[in-house]
């Protein structure tokens, strides 16, 4: 198990290293750049040249990359040029990471809490109306673009009905900040108004972000349970006279959970993509909004940090999934 883990961790380092190089070159190959974003229509050819030289963007790409690598190894990933000028890219990441994590956590919890039980129930009622409605619903859930759904939710609940806020993370900025996770901060400091206010801001984006993972988890759970129900060992367990509850817990659910766990892992990684769009619609100040804005303003330092970290998270979550697989199913370790 330990050797397996070490091998996988080394792979992770390699992947991230190669990715940072590719990313660096790709960003700089895009037309335009931060200089345009900084100067706008006030710029002249001369002032653009001067600023390009000042930012070192006129040097060959490999020189820029090694300089970047040298600074990065000492923890300096540069300062934001357009997203949050003057804030270091690392600080910006640390500042916004809790927002995205809070949102993603709410979304994935929602998706799991609804997806697994409903998927199971649908499998149990195969071919009945509940199952058919669930399958059709999950198809729609996967097909509707997150962006569109977010927009519709916002329009109905925030704009028309005015039940929930349409933008941001919290209205009350005098709330005490401890960890940056607003709901958690409110709970530990006992500021219940702030907790409620943060939750209000989380509801719509969480629902929008949860739809795709919910639909996927629902379908995988349903399919996995159907597969397991037909297995011989389930029939054996039943004929041994075990209670239905024991059969379900020990045989059906445990075996059906393997593909579901994988799916949850992959969906968690994929949440980042959805978070970009959701955060943009709800002006939710997380990493997704920073990424969208970073591209718009060609903010190299911020984009580099965000994409490298996103890749690390993605690779790391996959590693966790594989490890939990190895825990659930001993055969994986020996492969």
């Amino acid at each position, binding site marked *: 198990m330990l050797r397996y883990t070490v091998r996988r961790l080394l792979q992770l380092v390699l992947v991230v290293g190669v990715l940072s190089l590719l990313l660096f070159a790709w960003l700089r190959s895009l037309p335009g750049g931060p200089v345009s974003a900084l100067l706008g229509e006030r710029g*002249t050819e001369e002032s653009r040249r001067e600023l390009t030289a000042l930012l070192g*963007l006129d040097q060959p790409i490999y020189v820029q990359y090694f300089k970047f690598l040298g600074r990065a190894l000492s923890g300096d990933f540069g300062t934001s040029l357009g997203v949050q000028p003057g804030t270091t890219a690392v600080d910006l990441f640390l500042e916004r990471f809790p927002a995205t994590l809070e949102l993603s956590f709410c979304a994935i919890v929602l998706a799991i809490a609804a997806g697994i039980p409903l998927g199971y129930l649908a499998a149990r009622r195969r071919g009945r109306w509940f199952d058919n409605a669930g399958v059709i619903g999950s198809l729609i859930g996967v097909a509707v673009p997150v962006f569109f759904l977010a927009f519709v939710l916002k329009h109905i609940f925030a704009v028309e009905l005015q*039940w929930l806020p349409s933008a941001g993370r919290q209205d009350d900025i005098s709330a005490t900040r401890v960890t940056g996770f607003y709901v958690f901060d409110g709970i530990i400091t006992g500021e219940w108004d702030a907790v409620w206010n943060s939750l209000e801001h989380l509801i719509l984006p969480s629902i929008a972000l949860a739809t795709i993972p919910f639909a996927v988890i629902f379908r995988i759970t349903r399919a996995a349970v159907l597969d397991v129900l*037909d297995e011989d060992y389930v029939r054996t367990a039943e004929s041994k006279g075990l209670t239905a*509850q024991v059969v379900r817990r020990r045989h059906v659910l445990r075996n059906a959970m393997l593909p579901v766990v994988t799916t949850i892992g992959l969906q968690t990684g994929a949440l980042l993509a959805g978070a970009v769009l959701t955060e943009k619609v709800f002006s939710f100040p997380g990493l997704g909004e920073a990424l969208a804005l970073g591209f718009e303003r060609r903010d190299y330092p911020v984009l580099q940090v965000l994409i490298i970290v996103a890749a690390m998270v993605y690779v790391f979550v996959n590693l966790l999934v594989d490890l939990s697989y190895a825990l659930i199913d001993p055969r994986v370790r020996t492969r």
Partner: protein
Amino acid sequence: MPKIDMTRGSTLRKLTIVGVASITALSLAACAQSQRDPGNQGGKTGGTLTFGAEGKPKLFDPFYATDGATFRISRQVFEGLVGFKPGSAEAGPELATKWESSTDGKSWTFTLKQGVKFHDGTDFNAEAACFNFNRWYNQKGAGQSSSVSEYWVDNFGGFADGAKPSLFKSCTVKDAQNIVVELTGASSKFPDVLGLPSFSMQSPTAMQKYNADNVVAQGESFIFPEYAMKQPTGTGPFKFVNYDTTNNLIELGRFDGYHGDKAKLDKLNFKVIADETARKQALQSGDIDGYDYPAPADWAKLKTDGFQVVPRDAFNVMYLGITQKNNAKLQDFRVRKAISMAINREQLVKSQLPETATVATQFMPKIVQGYNPNVKPIEYSPEKAKALLAEAGASNLEVNFWWPSEVTRPYMPNPQDIFGAIAADLRNVGIKLNVVTKPWNGGYLTEIDQAKADLFLLGWTGDQSAAANWIGTFFGNAENRFYTKSSPWGEDLAKRLDAADVTADKAQREKLYQELNRQIVEEYLPAVPLSHSPPAFVLKKDVKNLTPSPLTAEEFSPVTKG
């Protein structure tokens, strides 16, 4: 298939119940109608106003800023020696009560207002004023970069180290109430330029305490000192309280020691919502009390929804740029004239721009000094355009026509539609277009300035009502984006613009600029002026006394809510 019943109390049942219950709880929470209001309802005075801003301030030291988002905050927190009369672009007294100049326009004596204090309790006096001038002039290192001290470099040129000539010479304290500012030459921009937020008076104590001048170029960006990020200290009616970067919220509070009429609001918050639709929805959902730059397409709907849509006087110009560098045919005045006559500008303004937009007769709006009311309007006539092209041997004219994507500007709310209208007009007279689209920050601006386009859409929002800030900026150097150097008159026009700028006599100067405006449109036509488009802001019904300013220099101190 074996049937397994869901017996009471089974794990799965619990799971189901928990799952369904969570969803129900969330839905219920969504249905719990809560009274959300961006501020306390403080009656006629007091309370909090939250205003939706389109961009994040870069920093809070206006001297190092160039962006409207920063200046919006600066105008509440800081004041300059010179101000602008509310609702106009005309300069008037602010921290200086009066000023007079020597006849050659090189020496200016400013009399300062008494009894003014900075937010940190420091006295504003002659010494503090000269401290500011000397601070600007003595920038070092990265502080001298034109992208850091852009407004100084644009308006005053060089610094104390003498590497480049500077308009500024010295500031001398005459007595506690008077200072003398010496210039190296006359300039049409002075003293009005001191009304720009960049030249606001800042507290010497706070600037020294928090290292205001410590700007460092590091890696790919600039690191600004604590003063610029967290400690801006001015004399304005509001003082800076906090910038919550995680929430995109800037909080200002009333300054009770203000020397004039104190602010009516207790607190003034600016919430940054970059997306225009999101700003609109935030207003409709009651999160904010107003916001800046509504899309012209939304004006009517916002009004019927009971909001106030307040247009400003347009202080911008949109033009069809023509680059003469790579297409020899465009160096022929008749071809440029034909292009200008082919465009139905009346129709363009009516169909694509907000209701109070106007057709531009020249490269500046009416309220700029040097505007010429007698410029002959460009006639719309496709027939004459075709005839002119034929006469110039350019009946088969082919041009690259560029338009920008991923952007809206106050003068150009919808580039794609504007491009579409103009392209149709040009094709109508037989001009063949090769269309190029690039993202605004993704190559458009850079490559326009590298003269890669023949025709392109662009514009300008002015800083002040000196003509030098308009036609001086466009054509004051012959190697401009229109490449007027290709034309026999290009260098001469640049020289004459300079000469007008340094003319000390105001009446004489205005005459020179009026003549230049006439010639640019009637004889040179380096580009085609299209329109002036008024940017607006929106307010809830109960927000009063926010006077629109053409310079987007609205002052929030008289504003009341409720």
